[in-house]
């Protein structure tokens, strides 16, 4: 009885919607048997995108996209609104996981040669989806309207302002005026909530259509080359003879992977909580050290380490160049070998990319190039560097502290790392060299000649000359002897 009713209701809808006829073939389209666990990352990324859309809609019910009130609404969301913290947490961890899964998906597609004929367009649309997703990451970080967001927006604009000729106009257009103000946040809200997601959904539709129309890449076999003349025919034959329907056969793995993704998301959101907001976006609070979110940390590091002469070129040129290479890739190597074992350059490229991004991100979290702004006033002078010193050297220790030397130079592992640590400086430089370095600067150190009296310089030198390595070479023998 119930079954018959269900059936008739289903038939009533099906007679009007015709979903079985239109969507059925897409759901059950044949995929290669070899499509195993490597092929789940795209589905995971899409699932996370759906989570982002849903949590984003929920957040928009409370968040106020106004420069004046956004911060208060974020605090309300985080501390007062029931489960508000959890929704914010889901949204930020969803974004982290989405970028992670998208990157893995892209690397897998690259290493499996899936971008080659006939799936060039699938790859290109995927590259555009990648750009959109990073755009969502940046604009989303700005909507978290705190100090990082305010100054991060300024950093973005300082980069855009370097574009030749039209730089200032780009800044005006993005900020909604020549200076950061009320309209700037509203513009980023429109970008984050309407413009980029709209583009993303449209591109995602094309991406999925292409996945169905051009088929899923078969697991590559070393030595089996892509020949544009025969590939489609061979693929169709193989996929019909030995393929399996996507639903339910291949979908099972996707569902397991998606379930795991949701579980990881839940655990991360519960355990680590939402990000910020860190400090109200008051430009007058200048005692702040703006930092980007995780995915942009490598860029933050590059910008600190690049020599100035190539900086503008790389800020503007590198993204264009990388985008062009990614889009042209399927045309540059659209056929031939797919398997990574026979594509050493591809493997080398991915390895170099991962090592570079990994070490840059690690460096960014250390950020040794940033002065430690409160080191001079907050850190103690290590006791072993004070004990048994002459009054003159002790005067020098005070000067080292008060002139902010420690902001860039560490003592006993504490302090800035912009310049070399001062432990053992007397083993590297003699007193004349120390005086010259302090007075004239050089090697990325400011000259202190104007700001130290001769007495202070003498005291600093006396103090620094007491800082020997614990083990020091004896010049005559080359033997290392401990100092007491």
């Amino acid at each position, binding site marked *: 009885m119930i079954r018959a009713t269900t059936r008739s209701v289903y038939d009533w809808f099906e007679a009007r919607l*015709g979903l079985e*006829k*239109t*969507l059925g*073939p*897409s759901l059950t389209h*044949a995929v290669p048997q070899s499509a195993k666990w490597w092929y789940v990352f795209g589905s995971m990324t899409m699932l996370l995108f759906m989570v982002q859309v849903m949590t984003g809609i929920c957040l928009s019910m409370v968040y106020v996209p*106004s420069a*004046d*009130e956004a911060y208060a609404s974020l605090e309300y969301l985080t501390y007062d609104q029931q489960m508000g913290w959890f929704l914010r947490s889901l949204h930020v961890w969803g974004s982290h996981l989405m970028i992670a899964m998208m990157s893995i998906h892209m690397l897998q597609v690259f290493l499996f040669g899936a971008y080659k004929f006939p799936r060039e367009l699938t790859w290109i649309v995927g590259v555009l989806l990648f750009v959109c997703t990073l755009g969502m990451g940046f604009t989303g970080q700005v909507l978290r309207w705190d100090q990082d967001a305010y*100054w991060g927006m*300024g*950093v973005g604009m*300082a*980069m*855009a*302002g370097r574009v030749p000729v039209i*730089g*200032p106009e780009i800044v*005006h257009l993005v*900020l*909604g*005026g*020549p*200076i*950061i*103000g*009320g*309209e700037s946040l509203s513009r980023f809200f429109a970008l984050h909530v309407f413009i980029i997601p709209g583009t993303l959904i449209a591109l995602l539709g094309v991406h999925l259509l292409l996945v*169905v*129309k051009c*088929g899923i890449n078969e697991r590559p076999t070393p030595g089996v080359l892509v020949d544009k003349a025969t590939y489609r025919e061979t693929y*169709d034959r193989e996929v019909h003879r030995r393929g399996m329907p996507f639903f339910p056969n291949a979908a099972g793995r996707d569902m397991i992977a998606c379930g795991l993704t949701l579980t990881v998301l839940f655990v991360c959101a519960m355990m680590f909580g939402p990000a910020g907001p860190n400090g109200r*976006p*008051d*430009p*007058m609070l*200048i*005692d*702040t*050290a*703006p930092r980007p979110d995780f995915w942009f940390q490598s860029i*933050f590091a590059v*910008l*600190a380490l690049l020599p*100035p002469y190539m*900086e*503008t070129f790389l800020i503007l040129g590198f993204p264009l160049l990388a985008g062009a290479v990614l889009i042209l890739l399927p045309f540059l190597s659209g056929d031939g070998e797919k398997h990574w074992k026979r594509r050493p350059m591809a493997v080398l490229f991915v390895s170099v990319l991962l090592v570079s991004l990994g070490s840059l991100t690690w460096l960014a979290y250390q950020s040794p*190039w*940033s*002065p430690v*702004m409160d080191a*001079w006033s907050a850190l103690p002078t290590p006791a072993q560097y004070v004990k048994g010193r002459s009054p003159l050297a002790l005067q020098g220790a005070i000067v080292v502290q008060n002139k*902010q030397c420690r902001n*860039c130079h560490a003592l006993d592992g504490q302090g800035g790392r*912009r310049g070399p640590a001062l432990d053992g400086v007397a083993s590297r430089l003699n007193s004349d060299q120390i005086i010259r370095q302090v007075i004239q*600067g050089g090697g990325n*150190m*400011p000259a*202190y000649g104007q700001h130290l009296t001769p007495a202070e310089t003498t005291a600093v030198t006396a103090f620094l000359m007491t800082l020997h390595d614990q083990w020091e070479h004896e010049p005559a023998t080359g033997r290392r002897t401990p100092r007491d």
Partner: protein
Amino acid sequence: MTVHLPQRDAPDLKQLGPGPDPQPSRRGVLFWAGAALNGVAAVAIGIPVVGYLLAPFASSGRKQSWVALGHVDEFPEGHTTLGEYVNPFTTPWDGYTANTPCWVKRDAGDAFTVFAINCTHLGCPVRWFPESSLFMCPCHGGVYYADGSRAAGPPPRGLYTYETRIRKGVLEVKAGRLPTLQQTP
């Protein structure tokens, strides 16, 4: 690819015949007239919309102007202190962002130099350390001397400076732009 494409029972237009209108020229006229009408209407609607989107470039009310930083006596001679001004144009929902900090250096008498807060490298707020007479940037380690010239780190130039003037004992700066490499504040 012939792998189960979604198929619909769309009518084949060629088999529908000429339809009720046997005069193809009349159909053509209607089509092109319709296209032209849509085009004209789209331009009429589109121009104001583009104007709306490009509003940030509209010069009306968006020019730099002189804003007060404070009475000259608020800034002690021989010191560099944090100044604050309200942007020359604001919206009621600017909140904190209506304010902009800057560094005011008063040498002696009426000799003022006002520096933008933004590091010339990538715009982070620089901090003044009177003990060592240096500005330091917390982001990438840019350092400037007391006169704003570059001392160390990645900045491509010295700190941006504002135009200043004194009217009736009040220090004013010409402000209203986010300073970037191609435009001073």
